[in-house]
């Protein structure tokens, strides 16, 4: 424990040095660009930020409070509860974060504030995934599913409809993103897995699992069915009713034949399925793969022919701030700018998530950490997560390589289909089968 603590301190010193060179206000406590009376006045403001387990935690909250001078109160909620709260009591929230599977719920609701681009400091440093709808090299990415560009801009300041082309109003500031793929137990599979089609292959009957749900499980299954040549789709991220029917019928057939071992609901379940050997191949989230590995069990995250399934998390402010107390709104914007300014991004980057402003991270992360997490370089020393656990030994390489090797081949994004109502109805039939 103590050893890790000293490590943390020395790392912070490194950070501080780096921060000083780039002139970022990490841990300095200075509020930039505001007169002193503002700092005095904002002292009593409390901002309520609700978010997921990945985006809200005591360490980050503590640092935010130290840096900003007003109070950030974070609450961690599961996605269903969070969206429900935003839909029913948006006035009890100032800032919220959510992923692409929720973006379909905010249109024409008047819940979220249109964030003027000019009020967000780091837009010009944000990866083009969000700003242009392309990869870093300018190539456009797959538009199947809820691609980032589909819900990044409001058409106008009324914040009712999304715009595919850039406007002056952001739906949210991009916080983190990643690409998911299949996790595999290399010691238990009979042959090398290179395609999603193995999910529906009889070689793995009874030993595969999917996420339980229509936003992640269904697109994963669709990619697998298409790869196996069992289905063709116009857009598997937004299926027609006929496509939904065919997909569910095929899945029911597979289920009755005993293809699936389980459908997992949460992170822990997916880790357990893999660690216990109940499942040898399944759709997984990156941190779950890491978690299996930290238990000393081999687990790989595979780059596959059909590409990965991408996702992102936005942070957004609530509409009631615009008509309310100006000071509170200023504080919220200040906090949202803080979110991507350094500490928070470094914190989640060291758990394997990607920051929307990687260059800013590079300036503030330990070169070994940045090299391992972002650049596909072999670790020069042990890789330690923010909780002090050794994740990888020196010499280790990250699965799938550098940021753009991993993120540069998205086949589909997490979905929320137009036919969601019909899909959920048919998904019920599937579970019942």
């Amino acid at each position, binding site marked *: 424990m103590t050893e890790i603590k000293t490590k943390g301190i020395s790392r912070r010193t490194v950070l501080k040095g780096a921060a000083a060179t780039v002139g970022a206000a990490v841990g300095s406590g200075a509020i930039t660009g505001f007169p002193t009376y503002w700092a005095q006045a904002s002292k009593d403001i409390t901002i309520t930020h609700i978010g997921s387990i990945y985006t809200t935690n005591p360490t980050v909250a503590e640092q935010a409070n130290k840096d900003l001078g007003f109070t950030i109160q974070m609450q961690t909620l599961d996605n*269903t509860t969070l*969206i*429900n709260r935003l*839909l029913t009591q948006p006035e009890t929230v100032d800032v919220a974060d959510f992923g692409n599977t929720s973006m*379909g*719920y905010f*249109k024409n*609701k008047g819940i979220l504030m249109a964030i003027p681009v000019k009020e967000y400091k780091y837009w010009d440093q944000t990866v083009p995934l969000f700003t242009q709808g392309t990869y870093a090299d300018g190539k456009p990415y797959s538009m199947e599913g809820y691609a980032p560009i589909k819900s990044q801009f409001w058409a106008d300041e009324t914040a009712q409809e999304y715009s595919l082309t850039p406007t002056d109003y952001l739906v949210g500031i991009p916080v983190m993103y990643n690409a998911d793929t299949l996790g595999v137990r290399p010691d238990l599979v009979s042959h090398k897995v290179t395609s999603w089609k193995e999910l529906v292959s009889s070689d793995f009957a*009874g030993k595969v*699992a999917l996420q*339980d*749900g*229509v936003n992640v499980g269904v697109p994963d299954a669709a990619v697998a069915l298409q790869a196996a040549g069992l289905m063709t789709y116009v857009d598997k991220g937004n299926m027609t009713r006929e496509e939904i029917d065919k997909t569910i019928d095929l899945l029911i057939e597979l*289920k009755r034949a*005993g293809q*699936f*071992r*389980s*459908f*997992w*609901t949460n992170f*822990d*379940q997916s880790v*357990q399925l893999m660690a*216990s*050997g*109940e499942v040898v191949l399944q759709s997984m989230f990156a941190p779950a793969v890491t978690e299996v590995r930290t238990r000393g069990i081999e687990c790989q995250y595979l780059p596959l022919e059909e590409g990965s399934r991408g996702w992102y998390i936005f942070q957004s402010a609530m509409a009631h701030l615009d008509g309310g107390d100006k000071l509170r709104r200023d504080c919220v914007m200040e906090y949202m700018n803080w979110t991507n300014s350094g500490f928070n991004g470094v914190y989640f980057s060291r758990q394997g998530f990607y920051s929307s402003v990687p260059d800013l991270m590079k300036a503030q992360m330990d070169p070994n950490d940045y090299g391992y997490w972002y650049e596909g370089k072999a670790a020069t020393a042990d890789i330690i997560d923010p909780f002090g656990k050794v994740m990888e030994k020196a010499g280790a390489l990250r699965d799938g390589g550098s940021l753009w090797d991993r993120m540069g081949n998205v086949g589909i994004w997490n979905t*929320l289909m137009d036919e*969601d*109502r019909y899909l*959920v*109805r048919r*998904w*019920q*039939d599937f*579970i*019942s089968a």
Partner: protein
Amino acid sequence: MSISPRTASWLQASPFALIMVALVMIPLAIIILVSFMDYGFAEIIPELYWGNYLDIFKSQLTLDLYLTVFRHIVIVWTITLLLGFTIAYYLIFHVRSNFWRAIFLMACAIPFWTSGSIRMISWVPLLGREGLVNQALMALGIVDEPISWLLYSEFSVLLVYVNMLTLAMLGPIANSMAKISPAIIQAARDQGATEWQTITQIIIPLIKPGIAVGSIFIITAVMGDGFIVKALSGNQVNTPAGAIMNEINAFMYPPAAAKSVIMLIIVMLIVGTLLRVVDIRKELARN
């Protein structure tokens, strides 16, 4: 100043009446209202819409869901009744000391000594392919390869129901049995009744209320459960409560509300029937 008895009784009843109205009646009324509405993306569209009920009454899904849950109820009820009765019988009529009775009853509650999530997780190392049961079966040469259906199947769901709910059946039955006067049992023995005759002709008729109360616990618990069935079947078994949860997770409140209304009616019918068969109130008044 004196209050008329009539006013007094109104006053006495009013706190509970208020709670019932505020916390049961009004929410229930809202659920019923919502069940007749249309819905879009995470929004309720306040127009009269029969589709939620039409789907329930016309679809194979409803039939499948209720067949599944009734099958669960019948199996779990039978097993917990047998277990509950035999354990209670042993505790009340064969264990002489109150001390040991209390100890044994405590032992029945062991499954509840830990948190629900830990209880859920601990089934995997026991029932999984690599689990203890499979390892034992393989070591004994009973099977050649691990049995898959021990976990993430209907079997594992039922097993956990029995594990969790036996106490709910045992308690009321033991309670009823404890109220039977030893003199009655003694009288039966004096008349030359065998133990079996005593059980069938004296004890069972006298503990009917206990069985009814236990049955209500079992039926409402299995009917209302979405968590155990999802976790232990690996989301591969769907029940009415599970279906409601799926819809709530997709923010589709009107169909979830309609399914809840139907489920409430069915549960009330079952419980009402049971209460007609057995007069629980009289039972509770008995010492």
